[in-house]
C-alpha cells in the first residue's frame, strides 16, 4: 500500500473520471479496455446497484430507478430545482434543512449519498487499475460552486470512504494540467462548459505559479440545457402531431433525453441529424434537425457564457486582448457554435489541444501531487467566486469578504447583544453579490453560545470568518471582554449537519464496500436477526419435538447464520438464512400444530 497516493477525481454532471500523479506526470485511470470516462449514472436494480455505462444502458427500461445528473442537486433546495423537475424522470422530494432527496424504489437518498455511490465506484476502479488501496482524494467542483455545494461534495467523499484532501475548482485544475510543462509568463482564460455547469477563470501563469485573478460562472448552465432545448422542440412537435394531451411516460422521457444528447453530439460534425421516436401503438415520430436550427436554439445559452467571460475579464482588470491563451474544457466545448463565439469574443485562436474530457482530472492529479509532496515547485493561488457577508438590520448584507479574494482569507467582525444577560447571538451568513439578504444565498445560521451574561451591548464577540483553501467557510468566535471562546452552532441552509454526515459515513462503513447495494445487506441482517429470534422463541415453546440430529442441525444452521451475519456477503447471509429456516421447519410445523389445536380447543370451548 502506498500511503502517498491521492486520487484526483473529476466528479462530473455527465461523466466522471480519475487520474493519478506519476513521476512522469499525471495519468488518467483507465479500465482494461482503455476506457476512462464513467457516465455519472446510477441504476438501482432488484439485486444490484450499477454505476457507469452499464447503468446508462438500462436508463430507458428502468427510468424511475436510473439516476443521473446528481451534481445538479448538490447543495440545492426543492425551490432551486423547479425547472429541472419536469425533465428528470426520477422522483425528487424535499429533504431536511431545505435540501432535496431522490426517491428510488421507496427509499430516499441524499445527493451526497448518490454521489458517494459514484465516488465509491471510481475508487474501486482506480484501485483495480493501480493495484493500490486508495483512501485519499482531490475532488474537483465548478469554480462557481457555493459553500453548500462544496460541502456537499466533500461530504459525498467522506461517505464514500475517502478523505477529501482538497476541493479544487475545475478551471483551475485544467489550467494546472495545461501549464504544467510551460514556463513562459502568460495570461490564460479557461472556458469550461460541462454537462451541467459553466465556469470561466482568468489566470496569470508564470514559472510554476498559477494565480487565479477572477472567476465567473453559472452552476446551472451546461450541455444539459442544450439537450433540453432539443427535448422541448421534439415534445412540442410530437404533441402538435399526435395531440396536445399526449403525456410522456418516464421511459419515453429517458429515451428523448438520450436522443437529444445524441443529436447534439452528431450536429457537432454533421450538418443535420434525424431523430425517430417510437411512441407505441404504431405512432412513430420522425424529424430531421439541422445544425442551423440547433444553433438558433443554443445561441441564447452560449451568449450567456460570453457575458460571463466579459465579467471575469473586467473583474481581473483586463480586456479580451490581454489574454494570451484560451483553454477550452468540458465536453460541450465541442459544439462548433461555442467555439465560434468564444473565438470571436477573445479575438484569437482557441487552444483545443487538450482532451476537454480529461484535462480536469489530470489537473486534480497534479493538485494531489502537490498535496502529497511529489510536486513542490508549483504554487497555486485560487480565489473565492462569491462575496461572503452577514445579514444586518433591515435585511441588508454587510460584505466581509469580496469575491475573487485569494483563499485562504479571513475577516473578523464584532457582535454584541441587544438585551441584558443575553447569552447567545444568531448570525445569518450569506454568499452572493446582491445588496439584500433575500437575494443572496443563505449559507447557514450560526448561533454563538456561551456569551457571559452582561448588560445589553456590553459583550464584544469577535467572530472570525475563515475561508479555507477549499473555499469552505470555518467560523470561530471569542468574547473579547472575558476572553472566552464562544461556541458556534451551525445550521446549514442547504446541506447536512456534521452529525448527519457522520451517521452516513457510519452507514457506509456498515454497508459492504464491494457490494454497492448496501441497503440490501442491512435488510438481510435485520431479517436474519428476526429469524434467529424466532428460532430461539420456538425452541423454548416447542423444542421438545426435535430429535437429537434435528436439534444439532438447527444449532449448526443458526450458528452458521450468526457467523455469516458478521460478514458483508449478502448471498452467503441469504443462503444461511434459507438453511436456518429449513432446519427450523419441524419447530415451525409443531408450533402451527400447537396454535391450530389451541384454536380448535378454544372453539370447542366456545361451542360449549
Amino acid at each position, binding site marked *: 500500500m502506498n500511503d502517498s497516493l491521492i486520487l484526483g477525481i473529476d466528479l462530473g454532471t455527465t461523466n466522471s473520471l480519475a487520474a493519478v500523479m506519476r513521476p512522469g506526470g499525471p495519468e488518467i485511470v483507465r479500465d482494461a479496455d482503455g476506457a476512462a470516462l464513467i457516465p455519472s449514472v446510477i441504476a438501482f436494480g432488484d439485486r444490484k446497484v450499477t454505476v457507469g455505462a452499464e447503468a446508462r444502458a438500462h436508463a430507458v427500461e428502468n427510468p424511475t430507478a436510473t439516476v443521473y445528473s446528481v451534481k445538479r442537486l448538490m447543495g440545492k433546495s426543492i425551490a432551486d430545482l423547479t425547472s429541472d423537475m419536469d425533465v428528470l424522470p426520477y422522483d425528487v422530494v424535499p429533504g431536511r434543512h431545505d435540501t432535496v432527496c431522490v426517491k428510488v424504489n421507496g427509499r430516499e437518498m441524499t445527493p451526497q449519498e448518490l454521489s458517494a455511490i459514484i465516488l465509491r465506484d471510481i475508487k474501486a476502479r482506480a484501485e483495480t487499475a493501480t493495484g493500490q488501496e486508495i483512501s485519499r482524494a482531490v475532488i474537483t467542483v465548478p469554480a462557481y460552486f457555493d459553500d453548500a455545494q462544496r460541502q456537499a461534495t466533500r461530504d459525498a467523499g467522506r461517505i464514500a470512504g475517502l478523505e477529501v484532501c*482538497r476541493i479544487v475548482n475545475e478551471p483551475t485544475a485544467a489550467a494546472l494540467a495545461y501549464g504544467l510543462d510551460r514556463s513562459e509568463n502568460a495570461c490564460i482564460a479557461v472556458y469550461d462548459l460541462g454537462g451541467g455547469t459553466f465556469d470561466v477563470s482568468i489566470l496569470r501563469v508564470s514559472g510554476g*505559479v498559477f494565480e487565479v485573478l477572477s472567476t465567473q460562472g453559472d452552476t446551472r448552465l451546461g450541455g444539459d440545457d442544450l439537450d433540453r432545448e432539443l427535448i422541448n422542440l421534439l415534445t412540442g412537435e410530437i404533441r402538435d402531431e399526435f395531440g396536445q394531451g399526449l403525456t410522456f411516460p418516464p421511459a419515453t422521457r429517458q429515451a428523448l433525453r438520450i436522443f437529444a444528447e445524441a443529436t447534439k453530439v452528431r450536429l457537432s460534425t454533421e450538418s443535420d441529424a434525424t431523430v425517430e421516436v417510437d411512441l407505441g401503438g404504431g405512432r412513430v415520430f420522425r424529424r430531421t434537425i439541422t445544425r442551423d436550427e440547433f444553433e438558433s436554439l443554443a445561441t441564447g445559452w452560449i451568449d450567456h457564457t460570453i457575458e460571463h467571460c466579459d465579467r471575469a475579464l473586467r473583474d481581473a482588470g483586463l480586456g479580451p486582448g490581454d489574454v494570451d491563451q484560451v483553454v477550452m474544457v468540458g465536453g460541450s466545448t465541442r459544439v462548433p457554435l461555442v467555439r465560434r463565439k468564444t473565438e470571436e469574443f477573445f479575438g484569437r485562436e482557441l487552444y483545443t489541444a487538450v482532451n476537454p474530457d480529461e484535462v480536469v482530472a489530470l489537473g486534480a492529479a497534479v493538485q494531489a501531487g502537490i498535496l*502529497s509532496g511529489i510536486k513542490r515547485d508549483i*504554487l497555486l*493561488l485560487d480565489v473565492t467566486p462569491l462575496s461572503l457577508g452577514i445579514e444586518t438590520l433591515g435585511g441588508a448584507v454587510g460584505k466581509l469578504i469580496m469575491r475573487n479574494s485569494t483563499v485562504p482569507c*479571513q475577516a473578523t467582525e464584532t457582535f454584541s447583544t441587544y438585551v441584558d444577560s443575553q447569552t447567545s447571538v444568531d448570525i445569518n451568513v450569506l454568499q452572493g453579490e446582491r445588496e439584500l439578504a433575500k437575494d443572496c444565498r443563505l449559507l447557514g445560521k450560526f448561533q454563538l453560545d456561551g456569551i457571559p451574561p452582561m448588560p445589553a451591548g456590553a459583550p464584544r464577540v469577535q467572530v472570525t470568518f475563515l475561508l479555507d*483553501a477549499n473555499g469552505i467557510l470555518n467560523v470561530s468566535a471569542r468574547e473579547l471582554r472575558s476572553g472566552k471562546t464562544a461556541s458556534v452552532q451551525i445550521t446549514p441552509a442547504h446541506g447536512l449537519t456534521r452529525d448527519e454526515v457522520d451517521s452516513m459515513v457510519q452507514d457506509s462503513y456498515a454497508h459492504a464496500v464491494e457490494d454497492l447495494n448496501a441497503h440490501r445487506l442491512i435488510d438481510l441482517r435485520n431479517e436474519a436477526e428476526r429469524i434467529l429470534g424466532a428460532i430461539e422463541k420456538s425452541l423454548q415453546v416447542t423444542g421438545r419435538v426435535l430429535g437429537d440430529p434435528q436439534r444439532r442441525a438447527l444449532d449448526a444452521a443458526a450458528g452458521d447464520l450468526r457467523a455469516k451475519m458478521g460478514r458483508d456477503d449478502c448471498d452467503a447471509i441469504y443462503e444461511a438464512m434459507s438453511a436456518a429456516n429449513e432446519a427450523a421447519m419441524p419447530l415451525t410445523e409443531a408450533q402451527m400444530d400447537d396454535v391450530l389445536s389451541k384454536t380448535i380447543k378454544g372453539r370447542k370451548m366456545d361451542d360449549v
Partner: protein
Amino acid sequence: MTETHDQAAPVKCRHCDKPMSTPMVCDYCHTVSLDATVADYFTLLDLPRRFDLDGEEIHRKFLALSRHAHPDFHAGDTPEVQQLHLRVSAVLNDAYRTLSDPASRAAYLLMLFGGKGSVEDKSVPDGFLGTMMMMQEELADALDTDDRAEIARITEVLQTQHDGLIRRIGTLFEQYQESISCKAVVDDLLGELRQQLNAVSYVKKLLSQATSAEHAHE
C-alpha cells in the same frame, strides 16, 4: 525619499533562533511563524513603509512568502501545523490584497501613520461633492434610459477622477515623508489624505454602480 523601515529589534526564529528578515518565514529553516499574524502588512511582506511601491515588487515578495506559507505544502503535517499555515496564509493574502491596490494601501498607511479613520472623519475635498452629485444624476439618467454609450462615458470619467485622486494621494505621501518632523504640516497632510481617500471610496462606489448596472442587464 527616506526609507521608513521598522527599526524594531530583529526578530528571531523560535525554531532555530536565527534572525529573521520578515516576521513570517525564517530565512534559514523556513519555519513559518505565528507572529506573522500580528505584524503590520509592510513588515510582513518585507517592504518599506511608504505609498510609492512597485506593484511587481509587492507581487514578487508575496509569491516568495506564499511558497512557504500556503497550506498546500503542509497537507501532510499535523492538524496544528496545518491550522497555523491556514491562518498565516489568510493574513498574507489579506496583506497582499491590501498593499497591492493603491487606494487600500494608502488607507492602510494612513492608519499606521495615526490618521483618522473613515468613520471619524467623513469630509471630502472642496467642490468634490458638487461634481459627484452631478455625475450621480447623469448616471441615474443613463441607467433609467439604458443608455449604454452614456454609461460607458461616465465610467471613463469616473476612472479618470479615480486615477487623479490616487496621483494626488501619492504626492501627499511624498510631502509627508519630507516634513515628518513638523507636526502641524503632518497633521494637515494626514487630514487631506483622509479627504482624498474618502473621495476615492465615493468614486469607487459610483463606478461599481455603473458596472453592476451593466451586468444587471445580462
